[in-house]
């Protein structure tokens, strides 16, 4: 598959910070990947998304050392705070989602087609005529994801994209990621939601204090699910079962 992002020993420090937010991170992202990045708050997951998509230091300032190569024409980032990402210029959700492709000067039918596809994927067609500022937090989060998808990015970074979503909408959002990746996009998701992440990830990476502490198959890296935590606390020997079916297989007669 096409390699779209390569980091080698990437170390990034925010302006004025006395220590790097990520340090010595090496990473490859190719079309078809769904890479889940996890770690405690402040571990550097959000920063890694910004670095991998070129937003840091270009937009946020700071210094980047190491090697970074981005071979994607378009990178899209869905930030953790969706309301900061609205254009503030669009009276309806459809206009908001069409804004990205429209600003690329594409023909009107292409723009509207991209907007409709993105709304269908995120199951928000019913919101098309609503005013963006009057949406609930979860509705807004899906609108912002759709707006980024509408520009058809080759690298899609999602920062805790289901934080505001109800469980059904969160499942739906995670469920569309493999199809988006299969269509030729590299996806990188930062999230503390290990259960949903484990369902869709092709690879996982865990950060602590800005450094990679584990990288590899999701089952190896995302071992801190709630079921695993309960099994561990109840005396189950490792490897800890990640979900209920695995737990049942470990229960003796």
């Amino acid at each position: 598959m096409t390699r779209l992002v390569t980091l080698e020993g990437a170390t990034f420090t925010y302006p004025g910070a006395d220590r790097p937010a990520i340090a010595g991170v090496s990473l490859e992202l190719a079309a078809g990947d769904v890479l889940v990045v996890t770690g405690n708050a402040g571990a550097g997951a959000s920063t890694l998304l910004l670095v991998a998509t070129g937003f840091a230091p270009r937009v946020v300032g700071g210094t980047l050392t190491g090697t970074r190569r981005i071979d994607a024409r378009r990178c899209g980032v869905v930030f953790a705070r969706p309301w900061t990402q609205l254009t503030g210029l669009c009276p309806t959700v459809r206009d908001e989602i069409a804004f990205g492709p429209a600003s690329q000067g594409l023909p009107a039918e292409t723009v509207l087609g991209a907007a409709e596809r993105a709304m269908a994927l995120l199951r928000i067609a019913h919101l098309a005529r609503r005013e963006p500022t009057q949406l609930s937090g979860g509705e807004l989060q899906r609108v912002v994801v759709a707006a980024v998808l509408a520009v058809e990015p080759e690298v899609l970074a999602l920062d805790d994209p289901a934080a505001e979503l109800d469980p059904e909408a969160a499942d739906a959002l995670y469920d569309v990621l493999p199809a988006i990746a299969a269509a030729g996009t590299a996806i990188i998701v930062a999230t503390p939601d290990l259960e949903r992440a484990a369902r869709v990830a092709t690879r996982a990476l865990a950060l602590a204090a800005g450094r990679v502490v584990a990288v590899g198959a999701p089952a190896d890296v995302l071992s801190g699910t709630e079921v695993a935590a309960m099994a561990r606390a109840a005396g189950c020997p490792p490897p800890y079962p990640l979900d209920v079916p695995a737990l049942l297989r470990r229960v003796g007669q």
Partner: protein
Amino acid sequence: MSGCEVRVTGARYAYGAEEALRGIDLDLAAGEQVALIGPNGAGKTTLTRLLVALRRPSAGRVTVGDWEVAGKRPDEMARRVGYAFQHADHQLFARSIERDVAFGPRCLGRAAAPVGEVLDELGLRPVAGLHPYDVPAPVRKLVALASVLVMEPRVLVLDEPTAGLDRAQRERVVAALRRRAAEGVTVLTVSHDLGFVAEVADRVVVMREGRIAADRPARELLYDREALAALGLRPPATAEVGIALGLRGSPVRTSEVVQAMSGIRWKQMPE
């Protein structure tokens, strides 16, 4: 016998032509721990805002204790009801985290407010001198919660207090709410996180399309797979484990489930 602390009667609210609340009746008894769940756009946040006079119902009535909310301003309501916004950035503005947390009590002239205790409780002491916007978003969320807890309100209304938090931060919030519950504070928590709901709530109110669709004890609803599925939900991991293992007493809190699992003989996995 504890009386009714919060009463909402026939409340309606619309954003332009969009009806967000279509006649809500809800009573919260003093000291009750209630979770408010439901799909995005169901009206949960709108309902909570009626309780603190941030929105005025177009019909119906809201009372908190012996106060008619209709006659109060939001700053008056803040003396009795602590409200943590879904988006913490909407309520942080001071130059340091400590000043932000101390702002409310200072405005009310409460010199003895437990600023330090609350900072410790939520693990914020090490960052107390930093600007709120120099810490990660989940930490800001805890700062917003701290600035509400420090006011020691009789009623707490929390909108998605654990969204984006890691496990350790979530556990601090759970512990803080359990402490308030033991002190008799009435808590209404909006959340999509049924695992968190299982840890802190005794009763769950479900909203859908501006109406109350269900109102049941947490232990009962969280084990009712069919009722949850009808609402587009699954039981939390604790109840999933409880159902799968046939644990007695419908344990919903992690500690209860671990306790109930403690007699299990585990199969060793082959090397």
